[in-house]
Protein backbone atom coordinates (compact mmCIF):
# COMPACT_ATOMS: atom_id res chain seq x y z
CA UNK A 1 0.00 0.00 0.00
CA UNK A 2 1.03 3.64 -0.23
CA UNK A 3 2.38 4.75 3.13
CA UNK A 4 -0.59 6.99 3.85
CA UNK A 5 -4.26 6.61 2.98
CA UNK A 6 -6.73 9.45 3.41
CA UNK A 7 -10.06 7.83 2.66
CA UNK A 8 -13.45 9.49 2.37
CA UNK A 9 -16.56 7.30 2.22
CA UNK A 10 -19.60 9.37 1.32
CA UNK A 11 -23.27 8.76 0.82
CA UNK A 12 -26.62 9.15 2.45
CA UNK A 13 -27.48 8.44 6.09
CA UNK A 14 -28.72 4.85 6.40
CA UNK A 15 -26.45 3.38 3.68
CA UNK A 16 -23.91 2.26 6.25
CA UNK A 17 -20.87 4.25 5.15
CA UNK A 18 -19.98 4.99 8.78
CA UNK A 19 -20.19 1.30 9.66
CA UNK A 20 -18.02 0.49 6.65
CA UNK A 21 -15.44 3.05 7.76
CA UNK A 22 -15.29 1.55 11.27
CA UNK A 23 -14.73 -1.96 9.84
CA UNK A 24 -12.01 -0.66 7.51
CA UNK A 25 -10.19 1.29 10.25
CA UNK A 26 -10.26 -1.66 12.64
CA UNK A 27 -8.93 -3.95 9.91
CA UNK A 28 -6.01 -1.55 9.41
CA UNK A 29 -5.22 -1.75 13.15
CA UNK A 30 -5.36 -5.53 13.01
CA UNK A 31 -2.79 -5.37 10.19
CA UNK A 32 -0.52 -3.37 12.51
CA UNK A 33 -1.04 0.07 10.98
CA UNK A 34 -2.27 3.16 12.74
CA UNK A 35 -5.77 4.28 11.85
CA UNK A 36 -8.30 6.90 12.88
CA UNK A 37 -11.96 7.05 11.91
CA UNK A 38 -14.41 9.92 12.17
CA UNK A 39 -17.65 11.02 10.61
CA UNK A 40 -19.90 13.94 9.90
CA UNK A 41 -23.64 13.41 9.91
CA UNK A 42 -26.79 15.44 10.38
CA UNK A 43 -29.14 15.34 13.38
CA UNK A 44 -31.64 13.33 11.34
CA UNK A 45 -29.18 10.36 10.98
CA UNK A 46 -31.11 8.83 8.06
CA UNK A 47 -31.48 10.55 4.69
CA UNK A 48 -28.93 13.29 5.29
CA UNK A 49 -25.55 13.63 3.58
CA UNK A 50 -23.05 11.45 5.44
CA UNK A 51 -19.28 11.50 5.30
CA UNK A 52 -17.03 8.99 7.01
CA UNK A 53 -13.29 9.39 7.10
CA UNK A 54 -10.48 6.89 7.62
CA UNK A 55 -6.81 7.70 7.81
CA UNK A 56 -4.31 4.84 7.66
CA UNK A 57 -0.63 5.43 8.26
CA UNK A 58 2.41 3.77 9.76
CA UNK A 59 3.32 6.91 11.68
CA UNK A 60 1.39 8.75 14.40
CA UNK A 61 -1.80 10.36 13.09
CA UNK A 62 -2.27 13.82 14.57
CA UNK A 63 -4.83 15.65 12.45
CA UNK A 64 -7.79 13.26 12.40
CA UNK A 65 -9.75 14.78 9.51
CA UNK A 66 -9.48 14.04 5.80
CA UNK A 67 -9.33 17.20 3.69
CA UNK A 68 -8.03 15.94 0.35
CA UNK A 69 -8.70 12.19 0.03
CA UNK A 70 -6.56 9.90 -2.08
CA UNK A 71 -9.46 7.45 -2.11
CA UNK A 72 -13.04 8.63 -2.42
CA UNK A 73 -16.16 6.45 -2.47
CA UNK A 74 -19.43 8.11 -3.55
CA UNK A 75 -22.64 6.24 -2.82
CA UNK A 76 -24.91 9.13 -3.87
CA UNK A 77 -24.98 11.79 -6.58
CA UNK A 78 -25.14 14.50 -3.92
CA UNK A 79 -21.94 13.16 -2.33
CA UNK A 80 -20.21 13.08 -5.72
CA UNK A 81 -21.10 16.72 -6.37
CA UNK A 82 -19.89 17.73 -2.93
CA UNK A 83 -16.61 15.83 -2.64
CA UNK A 84 -15.34 14.81 -6.11
CA UNK A 85 -13.40 18.06 -6.54
CA UNK A 86 -11.50 17.50 -3.26
CA UNK A 87 -9.74 14.32 -4.40
CA UNK A 88 -6.01 14.68 -4.99
CA UNK A 89 -4.38 14.35 -8.41
CA UNK A 90 -3.88 10.67 -9.16
CA UNK A 91 -6.30 9.60 -6.43
CA UNK A 92 -8.85 6.81 -6.71
CA UNK A 93 -12.53 7.60 -7.21
CA UNK A 94 -15.00 4.75 -6.75
CA UNK A 95 -18.60 5.39 -7.77
CA UNK A 96 -21.64 3.31 -7.09
CA UNK A 97 -22.67 2.75 -10.72
CA UNK A 98 -26.33 3.17 -9.83
CA UNK A 99 -26.28 6.79 -8.71
CA UNK A 100 -26.52 8.38 -12.15
CA UNK A 101 -23.13 10.08 -12.33
CA UNK A 102 -21.81 10.05 -15.89
CA UNK A 103 -19.00 12.60 -15.62
CA UNK A 104 -15.39 11.46 -15.98
CA UNK A 105 -13.29 13.66 -13.70
CA UNK A 106 -9.80 14.05 -15.13
CA UNK A 107 -6.57 13.29 -13.31
CA UNK A 108 -8.01 10.53 -11.14
CA UNK A 109 -8.54 6.79 -11.52
CA UNK A 110 -12.29 6.28 -11.84
CA UNK A 111 -14.02 2.97 -11.09
CA UNK A 112 -17.74 2.39 -11.53
CA UNK A 113 -19.26 -0.67 -9.90
CA UNK A 114 -22.97 -1.41 -9.41
CA UNK A 115 -22.55 -1.67 -5.64
CA UNK A 116 -26.16 -1.23 -4.58
CA UNK A 117 -27.43 -3.44 -7.42
CA UNK A 118 -25.06 -6.23 -6.36
CA UNK A 119 -26.41 -5.98 -2.82
CA UNK A 120 -30.03 -5.91 -3.94
CA UNK A 121 -29.83 -8.72 -6.51
CA UNK A 122 -27.59 -11.11 -4.57
CA UNK A 123 -28.46 -10.34 -0.96
CA UNK A 124 -32.05 -9.21 -1.47
CA UNK A 125 -31.41 -5.96 0.39
CA UNK A 126 -29.79 -2.59 -0.34
CA UNK A 127 -28.48 -2.56 3.25
CA UNK A 128 -25.58 -4.84 2.28
CA UNK A 129 -24.22 -2.17 -0.09
CA UNK A 130 -21.72 -1.01 2.54
CA UNK A 131 -20.00 -4.38 2.89
CA UNK A 132 -20.11 -4.90 -0.89
CA UNK A 133 -18.41 -1.50 -1.14
CA UNK A 134 -15.70 -2.63 1.30
CA UNK A 135 -14.90 -5.55 -1.01
CA UNK A 136 -14.78 -3.29 -4.06
CA UNK A 137 -12.54 -0.76 -2.32
CA UNK A 138 -10.15 -3.31 -0.89
CA UNK A 139 -9.80 -5.15 -4.21
CA UNK A 140 -9.01 -1.91 -6.04
CA UNK A 141 -6.69 -0.31 -3.47
CA UNK A 142 -5.39 -3.30 -1.40
CA UNK A 143 -5.78 -1.27 1.80
CA UNK A 144 -5.73 -4.16 4.25
CA UNK A 145 -5.13 -7.91 4.16
CA UNK A 146 -8.07 -10.18 3.55
CA UNK A 147 -7.51 -11.88 6.93
CA UNK A 148 -7.63 -8.53 8.76
CA UNK A 149 -10.85 -7.57 7.00
CA UNK A 150 -12.48 -10.88 7.87
CA UNK A 151 -11.43 -10.51 11.52
CA UNK A 152 -12.75 -6.96 11.57
CA UNK A 153 -16.08 -8.09 10.11
CA UNK A 154 -16.24 -10.71 12.89
CA UNK A 155 -15.60 -8.05 15.53
CA UNK A 156 -18.17 -5.63 14.15
CA UNK A 157 -21.14 -7.85 13.30
CA UNK A 158 -23.20 -10.10 15.52
CA UNK A 159 -23.24 -13.77 14.60
CA UNK A 160 -26.69 -13.29 13.05
CA UNK A 161 -25.40 -10.76 10.50
CA UNK A 162 -21.83 -11.95 10.03
CA UNK A 163 -22.33 -14.66 7.42
CA UNK A 164 -24.37 -12.47 5.08
CA UNK A 165 -22.02 -9.52 5.42
CA UNK A 166 -18.95 -11.66 4.80
CA UNK A 167 -20.66 -12.95 1.66
CA UNK A 168 -21.46 -9.36 0.60
CA UNK A 169 -17.79 -8.45 1.11
CA UNK A 170 -16.74 -11.38 -1.10
CA UNK A 171 -19.21 -10.27 -3.80
CA UNK A 172 -17.57 -6.85 -3.71
CA UNK A 173 -14.13 -8.40 -4.19
CA UNK A 174 -15.38 -10.43 -7.14
CA UNK A 175 -17.01 -7.43 -8.78
CA UNK A 176 -13.64 -5.85 -9.58
Amino acid at each position, binding site marked *: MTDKWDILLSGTGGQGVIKAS*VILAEAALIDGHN*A*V*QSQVYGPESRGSATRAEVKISDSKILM*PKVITPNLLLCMSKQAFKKYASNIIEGGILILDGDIGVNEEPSGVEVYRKPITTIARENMGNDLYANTVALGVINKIASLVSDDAMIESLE*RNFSARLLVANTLAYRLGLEAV
Partner: protein
Amino acid sequence: MNKVRLVQGNEACAMGAIAAGSTFYAGYPITPSTEIAEYMARELPKIGGIFLQMEDEIASMGAIIGASCTGVKAFTATSGPGFSLMQELIGYAAMTEIPCVIVDVQRPGPSTALPTLSSQGDVQQARWGCHGFHSIIAIAPSSIMEIYYQIINAFNLAEKYRTPVIFLMDEEIGHLRERFELPEDYQPEIINRKKPESDLEVYLPYINDESNGVPPMANFGDGYRYHISGLTHNEKGFYSSVPSVVDTEIRRMVGKIEDNVDDIAQFEEAYADDCDILVIAYGSVARSAQQAVEEMRAEGISVGLLRPIVLWPFATDYFTKACMGKKAVVVAEMNLGQYAREIRRIVHTDTPLKSLTRVDGEFIYPIDVINAVKEVL
Protein backbone atom coordinates in the same frame (compact mmCIF):
# COMPACT_ATOMS: atom_id res chain seq x y z
CA MET B 1 -7.74 -8.97 26.68
CA ASN B 2 -5.35 -6.09 26.07
CA LYS B 3 -5.34 -6.59 22.31
CA VAL B 4 -5.41 -3.63 19.94
CA ARG B 5 -8.92 -2.38 19.28
CA LEU B 6 -10.60 0.49 17.49
CA VAL B 7 -12.37 2.46 20.22
CA GLN B 8 -14.49 5.60 20.09
CA GLY B 9 -13.75 8.52 22.43
CA ASN B 10 -17.08 8.30 24.23
CA GLU B 11 -16.61 4.56 24.64
CA ALA B 12 -13.09 5.06 26.05
CA CYS B 13 -14.57 7.54 28.52
CA ALA B 14 -17.12 4.99 29.74
CA MET B 15 -14.52 2.19 29.85
CA GLY B 16 -12.18 4.41 31.86
CA ALA B 17 -14.94 5.37 34.28
CA ILE B 18 -15.52 1.71 35.06
CA ALA B 19 -11.76 1.14 35.42
CA ALA B 20 -11.72 4.08 37.86
CA GLY B 21 -14.22 2.21 40.00
CA SER B 22 -17.40 4.03 39.06
CA THR B 23 -20.49 1.96 39.80
CA PHE B 24 -23.17 4.62 39.43
CA TYR B 25 -24.32 6.60 36.41
CA ALA B 26 -27.35 8.87 36.15
CA GLY B 27 -28.02 10.85 33.01
CA TYR B 28 -30.28 12.07 30.28
CA PRO B 29 -28.99 11.11 26.83
CA ILE B 30 -27.95 13.94 24.51
CA THR B 31 -25.93 14.09 21.29
CA PRO B 32 -22.92 13.99 21.10
CA SER B 33 -22.51 12.25 24.47
CA THR B 34 -25.13 9.50 24.11
CA GLU B 35 -22.69 6.62 23.54
CA ILE B 36 -21.47 7.08 27.14
CA ALA B 37 -24.96 6.51 28.51
CA GLU B 38 -25.47 3.56 26.15
CA TYR B 39 -22.23 1.93 27.31
CA MET B 40 -22.99 2.44 30.99
CA ALA B 41 -26.56 1.15 30.58
CA ARG B 42 -25.17 -2.00 29.01
CA GLU B 43 -22.12 -2.58 31.23
CA LEU B 44 -22.95 -1.31 34.74
CA PRO B 45 -25.59 -3.95 35.55
CA LYS B 46 -23.02 -6.65 34.69
CA ILE B 47 -20.76 -5.49 37.53
CA GLY B 48 -23.54 -4.87 40.03
CA GLY B 49 -23.58 -1.13 39.37
CA ILE B 50 -26.58 1.11 38.81
CA PHE B 51 -27.59 2.96 35.65
CA LEU B 52 -30.41 5.45 36.01
CA GLN B 53 -31.98 7.31 33.11
CA MET B 54 -33.35 10.43 34.77
CA GLU B 55 -36.09 12.81 33.63
CA ASP B 56 -33.60 15.59 32.94
CA GLU B 57 -30.08 16.82 33.64
CA ILE B 58 -31.00 18.57 36.88
CA ALA B 59 -32.25 15.32 38.33
CA SER B 60 -29.19 13.52 36.94
CA MET B 61 -26.89 15.80 38.93
CA GLY B 62 -29.01 15.33 42.03
CA ALA B 63 -28.83 11.57 41.64
CA ILE B 64 -25.04 11.42 41.32
CA ILE B 65 -24.57 13.75 44.30
CA GLY B 66 -26.83 11.56 46.43
CA ALA B 67 -25.11 8.40 45.23
CA SER B 68 -21.68 9.84 45.99
CA CYS B 69 -22.77 10.52 49.58
CA THR B 70 -23.11 6.77 50.03
CA GLY B 71 -19.48 6.30 49.00
CA VAL B 72 -19.78 5.20 45.36
CA LYS B 73 -17.99 6.90 42.51
CA ALA B 74 -20.75 8.53 40.51
CA PHE B 75 -20.82 10.41 37.22
CA THR B 76 -23.01 11.78 34.47
CA ALA B 77 -22.45 12.79 30.85
CA THR B 78 -24.10 15.48 28.81
CA SER B 79 -23.59 18.24 26.27
CA GLY B 80 -24.10 22.03 26.36
CA PRO B 81 -27.88 22.28 26.91
CA GLY B 82 -27.71 19.69 29.71
CA PHE B 83 -24.53 21.19 31.14
CA SER B 84 -26.36 24.52 31.53
CA LEU B 85 -29.13 22.80 33.48
CA MET B 86 -26.60 21.11 35.76
CA GLN B 87 -24.90 24.29 36.91
CA GLU B 88 -26.93 24.91 40.06
CA LEU B 89 -26.25 21.44 41.42
CA ILE B 90 -22.59 21.56 40.35
CA GLY B 91 -22.43 24.57 42.67
CA TYR B 92 -24.19 22.53 45.35
CA ALA B 93 -21.59 19.74 44.97
CA ALA B 94 -18.80 22.33 45.20
CA MET B 95 -20.34 23.92 48.30
CA THR B 96 -21.05 20.62 50.05
CA GLU B 97 -17.73 19.13 48.83
CA ILE B 98 -19.20 15.97 47.36
CA PRO B 99 -16.97 14.19 44.82
CA CYS B 100 -18.49 13.62 41.38
CA VAL B 101 -17.52 13.72 37.70
CA ILE B 102 -19.46 15.54 34.99
CA VAL B 103 -18.58 14.72 31.38
CA ASP B 104 -19.47 17.47 28.91
CA VAL B 105 -19.03 16.48 25.27
CA GLN B 106 -19.16 19.96 23.84
CA ARG B 107 -21.23 20.97 20.81
CA PRO B 108 -21.85 24.50 19.51
CA GLY B 109 -24.21 26.76 21.43
CA PRO B 110 -25.93 28.63 22.89
CA SER B 111 -29.12 26.61 23.21
CA THR B 112 -29.53 23.53 21.00
CA ALA B 113 -27.48 25.03 18.10
CA LEU B 114 -25.67 22.25 16.14
CA PRO B 115 -26.17 18.92 17.94
CA THR B 116 -23.88 16.76 15.80
CA LEU B 117 -20.97 19.18 15.37
CA SER B 118 -18.02 20.17 17.51
CA SER B 119 -17.17 23.08 19.78
CA GLN B 120 -15.11 24.14 22.77
CA GLY B 121 -17.63 26.74 23.81
CA ASP B 122 -18.10 25.56 27.41
CA VAL B 123 -14.58 26.28 28.65
CA GLN B 124 -15.50 29.35 30.67
CA GLN B 125 -18.86 27.84 31.64
CA ALA B 126 -16.96 24.92 33.17
CA ARG B 127 -15.06 27.47 35.27
CA TRP B 128 -17.79 29.96 36.08
CA GLY B 129 -21.10 28.27 35.22
CA CYS B 130 -22.41 28.21 38.75
CA HIS B 131 -22.69 31.33 40.84
CA GLY B 132 -20.62 32.39 43.77
CA PHE B 133 -17.19 31.61 45.12
CA HIS B 134 -15.82 28.28 44.10
CA SER B 135 -12.98 26.66 42.23
CA ILE B 136 -13.25 23.74 39.86
CA ILE B 137 -11.13 21.15 38.08
CA ALA B 138 -11.62 20.73 34.31
CA ILE B 139 -9.74 18.31 32.05
CA ALA B 140 -9.62 18.42 28.22
CA PRO B 141 -8.24 15.23 26.61
CA SER B 142 -6.83 15.03 23.06
CA SER B 143 -6.76 11.35 22.14
CA ILE B 144 -8.65 8.15 22.80
CA MET B 145 -5.97 6.74 25.13
CA GLU B 146 -5.77 10.04 26.96
CA ILE B 147 -9.54 10.04 27.47
CA TYR B 148 -9.22 6.64 29.14
CA TYR B 149 -6.33 7.62 31.42
CA GLN B 150 -7.64 11.09 32.22
CA ILE B 151 -11.19 10.05 33.13
CA ILE B 152 -9.52 7.83 35.76
CA ASN B 153 -7.56 10.90 36.86
CA ALA B 154 -10.83 12.87 36.98
CA PHE B 155 -12.35 10.40 39.44
CA ASN B 156 -9.13 10.39 41.47
CA LEU B 157 -9.03 14.18 41.70
CA ALA B 158 -12.72 14.32 42.63
CA GLU B 159 -12.04 11.94 45.52
CA LYS B 160 -8.75 13.51 46.57
CA TYR B 161 -10.11 17.06 46.66
CA ARG B 162 -13.80 16.36 47.45
CA THR B 163 -14.94 18.33 44.43
CA PRO B 164 -16.92 18.07 41.22
CA VAL B 165 -14.57 17.54 38.26
CA ILE B 166 -15.59 18.57 34.74
CA PHE B 167 -14.39 16.30 31.95
CA LEU B 168 -14.46 18.58 28.91
CA MET B 169 -14.48 16.56 25.74
CA ASP B 170 -15.62 17.91 22.37
CA GLU B 171 -17.71 16.23 19.68
CA GLU B 172 -14.66 15.70 17.51
CA ILE B 173 -12.77 13.73 20.15
CA GLY B 174 -15.92 12.08 21.55
CA HIS B 175 -16.82 10.57 18.18
CA LEU B 176 -13.29 9.92 16.94
CA ARG B 177 -12.22 6.29 16.83
CA GLU B 178 -8.59 5.29 17.06
CA ARG B 179 -6.15 2.74 18.41
CA PHE B 180 -6.82 1.56 21.96
CA GLU B 181 -4.26 -0.65 23.63
CA LEU B 182 -3.40 -0.94 27.31
CA PRO B 183 0.03 -2.06 28.47
CA GLU B 184 0.21 -5.68 29.64
CA ASP B 185 -0.66 -5.95 33.35
CA TYR B 186 -1.95 -2.37 33.37
CA GLN B 187 -3.35 -1.44 36.78
CA PRO B 188 -4.68 2.09 37.22
CA GLU B 189 -3.74 4.05 40.32
CA ILE B 190 -6.99 4.56 42.21
CA ILE B 191 -7.47 7.24 44.86
CA ASN B 192 -10.33 6.99 47.33
CA ARG B 193 -11.68 9.78 49.51
CA LYS B 194 -10.13 10.04 52.96
CA LYS B 195 -12.50 8.72 55.61
CA PRO B 196 -12.77 10.02 59.18
CA GLU B 197 -10.96 8.18 61.95
CA SER B 198 -12.46 10.19 64.78
CA ASP B 199 -15.03 8.93 67.29
CA LEU B 200 -18.60 8.95 65.97
CA GLU B 201 -19.61 11.85 68.23
CA VAL B 202 -16.86 14.29 67.30
CA TYR B 203 -16.81 14.08 63.50
CA LEU B 204 -16.42 17.47 61.81
CA PRO B 205 -17.21 17.04 58.07
CA TYR B 206 -15.86 20.48 57.14
CA ILE B 207 -12.95 20.72 59.54
CA ASN B 208 -10.20 23.15 58.64
CA ASP B 209 -7.15 21.46 60.11
CA GLU B 210 -5.86 19.45 57.18
CA SER B 211 -2.77 20.66 55.41
CA ASN B 212 -4.33 20.39 51.94
CA GLY B 213 -7.70 21.83 53.02
CA VAL B 214 -9.67 18.65 52.31
CA PRO B 215 -11.61 17.28 55.30
CA PRO B 216 -12.25 13.52 55.61
CA MET B 217 -15.68 12.44 54.33
CA ALA B 218 -17.96 9.93 56.05
CA ASN B 219 -20.28 7.92 53.84
CA PHE B 220 -23.97 7.55 54.60
CA GLY B 221 -24.25 4.41 56.66
CA ASP B 222 -20.81 4.61 58.24
CA GLY B 223 -22.45 5.68 61.51
CA TYR B 224 -21.34 9.30 61.54
CA ARG B 225 -24.16 11.82 61.86
CA TYR B 226 -23.66 15.08 60.02
CA HIS B 227 -25.49 17.77 58.15
CA ILE B 228 -25.12 18.61 54.45
CA SER B 229 -26.31 22.01 53.30
CA GLY B 230 -25.83 24.38 50.38
CA LEU B 231 -26.04 27.22 52.86
CA THR B 232 -22.73 28.49 54.18
CA HIS B 233 -21.87 26.22 57.05
CA ASN B 234 -19.51 25.73 59.94
CA GLU B 235 -17.19 22.78 60.50
CA LYS B 236 -20.15 20.65 61.63
CA GLY B 237 -22.05 21.37 58.42
CA PHE B 238 -24.72 23.52 60.05
CA TYR B 239 -25.78 26.88 58.68
CA SER B 240 -23.63 29.79 59.73
CA SER B 241 -23.60 33.44 58.77
CA VAL B 242 -20.81 34.37 61.16
CA PRO B 243 -18.48 36.36 58.89
CA SER B 244 -15.29 34.80 60.19
CA VAL B 245 -16.71 31.27 59.77
CA VAL B 246 -18.01 31.97 56.26
CA ASP B 247 -14.75 33.59 55.22
CA THR B 248 -12.63 30.71 56.55
CA GLU B 249 -14.77 27.99 54.96
CA ILE B 250 -15.06 29.65 51.53
CA ARG B 251 -11.33 30.42 51.37
CA ARG B 252 -10.50 26.85 52.39
CA MET B 253 -12.85 25.44 49.72
CA VAL B 254 -11.33 27.58 46.98
CA GLY B 255 -7.80 27.20 48.31
CA LYS B 256 -7.87 23.40 48.43
CA ILE B 257 -7.86 23.51 44.59
CA GLU B 258 -6.11 26.79 43.75
CA ASP B 259 -3.27 26.18 46.23
CA ASN B 260 -2.70 22.69 44.83
CA VAL B 261 -2.49 23.70 41.18
CA ASP B 262 0.99 22.16 40.93
CA ASP B 263 -0.45 18.79 41.92
CA ILE B 264 -3.45 19.07 39.59
CA ALA B 265 -2.12 20.77 36.45
CA GLN B 266 -0.82 18.68 33.54
CA PHE B 267 0.67 19.80 30.23
CA GLU B 268 2.28 18.44 27.13
CA GLU B 269 4.88 20.50 25.34
CA ALA B 270 6.53 20.26 21.92
CA TYR B 271 9.46 22.64 21.35
CA ALA B 272 7.78 25.06 23.80
CA ASP B 273 11.11 26.11 25.36
CA ASP B 274 12.85 26.44 22.04
CA CYS B 275 10.62 28.67 19.92
CA ASP B 276 9.78 32.28 19.04
CA ILE B 277 6.08 31.69 18.49
CA LEU B 278 4.18 29.61 21.03
CA VAL B 279 0.91 27.95 20.00
CA ILE B 280 -1.49 27.04 22.81
CA ALA B 281 -4.28 24.55 22.04
CA TYR B 282 -6.21 21.86 23.89
CA GLY B 283 -8.64 19.02 23.21
CA SER B 284 -9.08 17.88 19.60
CA VAL B 285 -7.74 21.19 18.22
CA ALA B 286 -4.33 20.47 19.78
CA ARG B 287 -3.90 17.64 17.27
CA SER B 288 -4.27 20.07 14.37
CA ALA B 289 -1.99 22.50 16.15
CA GLN B 290 0.71 19.87 16.66
CA GLN B 291 0.52 18.81 13.02
CA ALA B 292 0.86 22.49 12.03
CA VAL B 293 3.84 22.94 14.38
CA GLU B 294 5.60 19.87 12.95
CA GLU B 295 5.05 21.12 9.38
CA MET B 296 6.31 24.62 10.23
CA ARG B 297 9.38 23.31 12.10
CA ALA B 298 10.23 21.34 8.96
CA GLU B 299 10.15 24.67 7.08
CA GLY B 300 12.49 26.19 9.65
CA ILE B 301 9.90 28.32 11.44
CA SER B 302 10.64 28.66 15.16
CA VAL B 303 7.31 27.55 16.62
CA GLY B 304 6.30 25.35 19.53
CA LEU B 305 3.19 23.89 21.12
CA LEU B 306 1.90 24.02 24.65
CA ARG B 307 -1.12 21.81 25.33
CA PRO B 308 -2.83 22.13 28.69
CA ILE B 309 -4.48 18.82 29.61
CA VAL B 310 -5.99 20.35 32.75
CA LEU B 311 -7.65 23.68 31.85
CA TRP B 312 -8.82 24.56 35.37
CA PRO B 313 -7.46 25.47 37.85
CA PHE B 314 -5.50 27.87 35.65
CA ALA B 315 -1.76 27.37 36.15
CA THR B 316 -0.86 31.05 36.25
CA ASP B 317 2.83 30.66 37.13
CA TYR B 318 3.42 27.96 34.57
CA PHE B 319 1.75 29.86 31.71
CA THR B 320 3.46 33.11 32.66
CA LYS B 321 6.86 31.43 32.51
CA ALA B 322 6.06 29.54 29.29
CA CYS B 323 4.95 32.71 27.46
CA MET B 324 7.79 34.86 28.76
CA GLY B 325 10.16 36.10 26.07
CA LYS B 326 8.09 34.77 23.18
CA LYS B 327 7.80 36.90 20.06
CA ALA B 328 4.09 36.10 19.90
CA VAL B 329 1.52 33.67 21.28
CA VAL B 330 -1.27 32.02 19.25
CA VAL B 331 -4.25 30.42 21.02
CA ALA B 332 -6.36 28.13 18.80
CA GLU B 333 -9.81 27.03 20.00
CA MET B 334 -13.31 26.29 18.71
CA ASN B 335 -14.92 29.24 20.47
CA LEU B 336 -14.55 33.02 20.41
CA GLY B 337 -11.35 33.13 22.44
CA GLN B 338 -12.36 31.82 25.88
CA TYR B 339 -8.94 30.48 26.87
CA ALA B 340 -7.15 33.23 24.92
CA ARG B 341 -8.77 35.66 27.37
CA GLU B 342 -7.09 33.78 30.20
CA ILE B 343 -3.72 33.74 28.42
CA ARG B 344 -4.03 37.45 27.59
CA ARG B 345 -4.19 38.06 31.34
CA ILE B 346 -0.70 36.65 31.93
CA VAL B 347 1.17 37.47 28.70
CA HIS B 348 3.34 40.56 28.79
CA THR B 349 1.38 43.50 27.40
CA ASP B 350 3.98 44.00 24.65
CA THR B 351 3.66 40.41 23.40
CA PRO B 352 1.22 40.06 20.48
CA LEU B 353 -1.49 37.46 21.11
CA LYS B 354 -3.39 36.01 18.18
CA SER B 355 -6.70 34.41 19.10
CA LEU B 356 -7.61 31.88 16.39
CA THR B 357 -11.33 31.18 16.71
CA ARG B 358 -13.98 29.04 15.06
CA VAL B 359 -17.69 28.78 15.91
CA ASP B 360 -19.39 27.19 12.87
CA GLY B 361 -19.07 23.59 14.05
CA GLU B 362 -16.21 22.91 11.61
CA PHE B 363 -12.76 21.83 12.75
CA ILE B 364 -9.70 24.05 13.02
CA TYR B 365 -7.33 22.65 10.39
CA PRO B 366 -3.51 22.71 10.44
CA ILE B 367 -3.55 25.28 7.64
CA ASP B 368 -5.62 27.62 9.83
CA VAL B 369 -2.98 27.39 12.57
CA ILE B 370 -0.16 27.89 10.05
CA ASN B 371 -1.85 31.01 8.68
CA ALA B 372 -2.37 32.39 12.19
CA VAL B 373 1.30 31.84 13.05
CA LYS B 374 2.42 33.49 9.80
CA GLU B 375 0.33 36.55 10.67
CA VAL B 376 2.40 37.15 13.81
CA LEU B 377 5.79 36.00 12.51
